[in-house]
C-alpha cells in the first residue's frame, strides 16, 4: 500500500497508548510519571530477571535482585544523563548487585566445607560445583554428567568470570557492551572470557 489513505485508529488500552520512544519514556519517568516508569521497567525486566536467575539459580535471590535493581533505578533515574544507553546504565546496576551476591556466596562457601544435600550433610570437596545443582533431582534426570560438569566449572569461576561468561555466552552481549556495563575495558572483558574458555575446554573438551 503505497501512500494510500491510512486511518490509524488510536484506541485506548494498551494498543497504542502512547507514542513515546525510550528517551521520552525516560524523561517522563524522570518527571515523576509512574506509568512511564512502569513501561520502561517492562521493556527490560524480563531479561534482568532471567540474568539474575541464571547467575544465582535461586528464585528468592533473583527476586531480591529484581526489586533492588528497579528500586535503585527509580531512585536514581533523575541522575541518568543519556551519556550511555539506558540498557548499559541498568546493567551496571544489575551486574553490580549480582556480583556482590556472588562474591558473598563465595565467601560463605569457603567458610564452611560441609554442606547440606538431599543425601544428608557432605563435605564440599565431594561435590562438584554448585550444590544446588547437585541436589536438584530433575537436573540429574535430564542432564547427566555433562550438565554436572558444566555446573562444576561454572561454580569454580570467580564472580567476575562467571558474569562475563554469562553475559557473553548466554546473553549474547558483545564484549564491548559487557566492558561498559562492568565498568572495565573491552580488553579486560576479553581476557576474562579467554580464561573461562580455557577452563571450559579443559573440563568439557573431551566430553563432547
Amino acid at each position, binding site marked *: 500500500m503505497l501512500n494510500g489513505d491510512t486511518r490509524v485508529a488510536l484506541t485506548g488500552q494498551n494498543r497504542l497508548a502512547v507514542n513515546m520512544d525510550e528517551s521520552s519514556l525516560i524523561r517522563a519517568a524522570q518527571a515523576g510519571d509512574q506509568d512511564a516508569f512502569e513501561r520502561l*521497567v517492562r521493556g527490560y525486566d524480563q531479561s534482568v530477571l532471567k540474568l539474575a536467575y541464571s547467575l544465582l539459580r535461586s528464585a528468592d535471590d533473583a527476586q531480591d535482585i529484581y526489586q533492588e535493581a528497579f528500586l535503585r533505578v527509580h531512585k536514581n533515574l533523575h541522575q541518568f544523563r543519556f551519556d550511555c544507553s539506558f540498557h548499559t546504565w541498568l546493567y551496571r546496576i544489575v551486574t553490580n548487585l549480582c556480583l556482590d551476591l556472588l562474591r558473598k556466596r563465595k565467601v560463605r562457601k569457603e567458610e564452611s566445607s560441609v554442606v547440606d544435600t538431599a543425601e544428608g550433610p557432605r563435605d564440599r570437596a565431594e561435590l562438584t560445583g554448585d550444590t544446588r545443582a547437585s541436589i536438584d533431582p530433575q537436573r540429574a534426570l535430564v542432564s547427566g554428567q555433562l550438565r554436572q560438569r558444566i555446573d562444576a566449572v561454572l561454580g569454580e569461576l570467580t564472580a567476575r568470570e562467571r558474569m562475563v561468561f554469562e553475559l557473553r555466552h548466554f546473553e549474547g552481549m558483545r564484549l564491548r557492551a559487557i566492558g561498559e556495563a562492568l565498568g572495565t575495558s573491552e580488553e579486560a572483558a576479553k581476557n576474562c572470557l579467554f580464561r573461562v*574458555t580455557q577452563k571450559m575446554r579443559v573440563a568439557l573438551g573431551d566430553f563432547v
Partner: protein
Amino acid sequence: MKLACDSVRENLSLLLYGELSFTEEEAVQAHLQGCTECRAALDTERAWHDGLALATVEPPADLLVKCRQQLRANLPEPVPQNWLQRLWRGLDLNLNLRSLAKPAMALGLVAVGYLGARLPNLTEAPQETAAAHVRYVEADAAGNVRIVLDETKPRIVSGRTDDPQVRRWLLAAAREANDPGLRAETVALLQGGVEAVDVRRALVSALESDPNPGVRLKAIEGLRRHAGERDTRQALMRVLTADENPGIRTQAIDLLTESGPRSLDAQMVGALQQLMRREENGYVRQRCEKALRLANASAEIF
C-alpha cells in the same frame, strides 16, 4: 602472520563468539584452512559451546509477575502535586468506576467535575464508562464524593502514510504496540515510505529486534529495495547469524546476494562463511553454499 596450532586452539572460542580482531581472525582462518587437526578442534569447540545450552535455566513461570507486583507495592507514592492528590492517595488507581459508582450513586450525592470536557457525564451507562479509570476520589464529611477519572477515549488520526502526523504514529506503533499483529500491519504500511530515513531505520530496528518473526518478515520485505545500502547490508549481515528464524535468514541471504556476484565483497563472503560455520538448517546451508559458489569463495573452510 603464521600461527602455531596451540595459539589457534586457544582462540577458537573467541572466534566462535566473533570477538577476535580483524587481523586475528584472518590469521586463525588462514591457519584453519591448512590444518585438519585444528579444524577438528574447532568442531569440538563448537560442540561444547552447544553443550552449554544444557546448563541454561529459566526462572519459574510466575516469578516475573510476583516481582512486578512486589515492585509496584514497594515504589514510593508519587509526590502529591495538588490538593486532590493529597487525598485518597492510598486508593488503588485502577479501581474501576463500575464498582465505585454504585455505592456512590446510592448515596445520591455524587458530584463530578474536573478535567473539564474529558470527564464523562455520570448519567452514562456504567458499561460505557467501565474503561475509564478512577484516579482520585475524595469524600467530605457531608458525604459528597468527587471522582477524577483517567479516561482513554479513542481518537482518530487519518491521512496519507507520508503525512508527518500519521507517520509519527505509525513509527511509534511499529516499535511500541503490544500486539504483534498490529506491529506487522504497521510495518507493512511503512514499507511504502521506505525512501525516508526514519522509516528505513524503523524497519531495520524491527528486523533486528522485534520478537515476532511475522513482523521481522514484513520489515525485511520492506528493505528489499534498499538492500544495496550500507546500513541495510550491515543489518542484514547481522541478521544472517543472529535471527533464530530460518525463513528470515534465507531472506537475508537472498537480499544480500540479489544483485549478483558484485554484491559479494570480502565482508559479505566472510559473513556467509561465518554462517556456514554456525548454520544447522540444511536449507539455509544450501542457499549459503550457493551464494558462496557465486562468489567463487570456499564454503568448505570447515
